[in-house]
Every structure is written in structure tokens, then in C-alpha cells.
């Protein structure tokens, strides 16, 4: 119901942040965010307003939660071998929860 798009803060000028969304820069208002925002932070944008500072550690936390769901309580594993292999590769490739700065 609400199109929310995450992006990385490039610059902050008062109540306005310049935010990079996959390479497109857009000015976003900071009036309603509940934490101070500095360049390098990630924010969730909705209709031109940042509504949340996304803690980088929570990205890792979410992915870990999904992997927990995958394992299931019983430890049953329905994943086909190829899927398990691909998954292992992708987990290794994205091991650091904090995205490297480019």
C-alpha cells in the first residue's frame, strides 16, 4: 500500500537529504525521521519523505532470520542439492552484513 524505496544518503542540508537510489539522486525530506541521519546512512523513502533510518545490522539480521526459517524447526531439508549449493555460494559472497563503501 505504500511504495517504499531504500537509498543511501549522500549529503544532508538541514531538513533535506540527497539520497542515491540505485544511481539516481533525489532530494528527500527529513521532517519525519526519528533519528539523526548522516551521509552513508540508509533510509526508506516514501513520497519524498525519509520515514526510517535502516540500521545496516538489521539487514544481516533479516537474512539470518530467513535462513532460520529455511532450516525449519525439525531441521528437515527439502532443498535440492543445486539450490543448497547456490545458496551457500550466495551466503559466502554476502557474508558481511554491512555493505562495503564504494
Amino acid at each position: 500500500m505504500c511504495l517504499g524505496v531504500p537509498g543511501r544518503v549522500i549529503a544532508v542540508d538541514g531538513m533535506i537529504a540527497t539520497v542515491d537510489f540505485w544511481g539516481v539522486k533525489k532530494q528527500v525530506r527529513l521532517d519525519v525521521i526519528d533519528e539523526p541521519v548522516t551521509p552513508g546512512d540508509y533510509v526508506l523513502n516514501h513520497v519524498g519523505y525519509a520515514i526510517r533510518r535502516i540500521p545496516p545490522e538489521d539487514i544481516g539480521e533479516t537474512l539470518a532470520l530467513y535462513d532460520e526459517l529455511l532450516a525449519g524447526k525439525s531441521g528437515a531439508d527439502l532443498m535440492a542439492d543445486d539450490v543448497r549449493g547456490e545458496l551457500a555460494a550466495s551466503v559466502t559472497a554476502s557474508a558481511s552484513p554491512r555493505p562495503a563503501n564504494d
Partner: protein
Amino acid sequence: MIVSRDRVTLKMGAGGHAMRRLIGEVFLERLAGPEMLAGDIGLAALDDGAAVRIGDQWLVTTTDSHVVHPIFFPGGDIGRLAVAGTVNDLAMMGATEPVMLTLAVVIEEGFARADLERIAESIRIACAEAGVRIMTGDTKVMGKGELDGIILNTAGVALTSRVIPDRGLQVGDRILVTGTMGDHGLAVLAARGNLSLEVELRSDVAPINGLVRAALAVAGDGITAMKDPTRGGLASALHEMADKARVGILLEERAVPIRPDVRAVGELLGIDPLHVANEGKVVMGVRPDRAEAVLAAVRAHPLGREAALVGTCIADSPRRVVLDTGFGRRLLIEPDGEPLPRIC
């Protein structure tokens, strides 16, 4: 609703179902008749243009009116659009050597002369690229407020020995796109300037008869149908081709080339790049045994470097386009009306 049945709405000009219905009910009903010769392509075919047999050649004609806001946008302007639109429509019928174009200009009182000159210069350059000339024209000026700036109409004439109708897809044909999708539509939207986006998207507007000529040269009769995915984008073009040929199309979303900045603007505004216009691209149906050769020929052309095979014609699900997203499948919905930024 009462109003939309009594009056023409913007949706009816947006290239989708509503437009086809308006054309059918108002124009085809009264104007379409039997063709002079079997095989001629007339109004009822609703193809990119008309084709009539003259001796051992086909005379292909098409006409197109152009309005765009803003008139000048990154990558082009209304003048370039007017030439490319008509040249490309001829090329889509297989007629890649246009004999001439006509140009009609309707101008709003007060329009800047410098802008008019800039548009004329742009027309000259686009004509040179396409290898065609404006041979006749017409100019009208209307009162302030009676139109928004300027309207251009171009018509084109060409001869070809083989016509390719847009209804020729067959089960098993591969679908080829000659480059990235969504560039023009999102560039124009971003250029309207009220979205506070810092991005320089460029329209792909260009005459592509040269590229089509190169593809036809290696394809033989291996190209079964062509369409330029203008209004309504790839989604509309594929629906129209599938509908006319009564085949299904399975489209591999991940194979469709989309520029990262176009994708990003699409994500921000909630607009699918597959639903917006291209002005320098072709969607082709290619016989499977010719697909790789045609792809190589298109990629060798400067306007086709990012061409890709993106789908296959199937017997199941006739007249529909099934999108394989890599996560699952869905039916590709045909856009109705101009795509608008959305919040949900």
C-alpha cells in the same frame, strides 16, 4: 460512469485496449472496406502502415502525428521524434528505404521562432540519418491556447519487394528486442522536471531503418513479424503481436535489457519500464534457426549493441503474454493509459 462514454479521454490515445476500441467503433466501422487486391494491408489490419501491390513491388505508406511534453528532452525533441516515428513505422513493414516524407506543422501563436528553427534543424539531421528527405509540407498557425505549443505530422512513402505484416508470429519463433527498454518514456517523464530527480536519462529516439535493413539482409524470410514498441512499451507491442497471430508469448523478464538508471527511476516512481515508450527500438519475431544470426547482425549495428533474445512464441495461452520473472510467472498486463507515478 457517464462521461467517458460520451467524450474522448486521454486513455483512448494511449495505445492500449481503450484506443483500439475507439478506432474500431468510430473509424473502422465507417472507413475500413475490402482491400483492392488480396494480400494488401489496409486500415482494418491496424498495422504500422498500409501496403498495396504495384507491379512486383509493394507501396508502403504511413502517417503519424506527434505531440510531446516537453518539446525538447534529453536525447531528442519533437522534430527528431516525428521523423523517426514515421521512418520506423515504414521499416516495421519491411520497407527500409523510404522514398520521401511529408511534414505538416501546426503551431500555437506566440511559439518562439528560435525553437521552431531548432526543431527544423533536428528534422534535417534525423532525415539525413534515415536517408530520406521532406518532399512536401504544410504550415498552420492557431490562436494562443488552441493547442499546446506545436503539433507535427509526418507521412512516409516507401517501396519494398517484401512486406512483413505484424501478424506473422508462429509458434516456436524467438522474440528479439534490439536494445534497452523504457528509455524514451522514462526520460520524458524525468525531463518534466517536477519529480526532483537528479538523473540524465536519454531518450533512444532514432530512425532505425538501417538496423532493420541489416537484420533483414541476414534473416532471409526468417523475420516473421516486427513492431516498434512505442506507446504502451514492450507490453503493448507483444500483446498486439500475440493477439494478431493468435499465439502465446513467454517472456523472460531477466533477459530483457533495461538500463540501471531507467530501472531505478521506474522503481522510484512505481512505473514498469516494460509499459513505457521506446522510440528507437524494434521487437522482432525470428524463426528459431535464424535467431542467433539475426541477433549477431543486430548487435553489429551501432543502434543494436544491447539486443537480446527475450522470449519464445508458444501454443499455450494464445493472445496472452506470460512473464517469467525468475521467481515465478504471471500474465503481463497490458497498460491502459499513460503510466503515472504512484504511491502504492
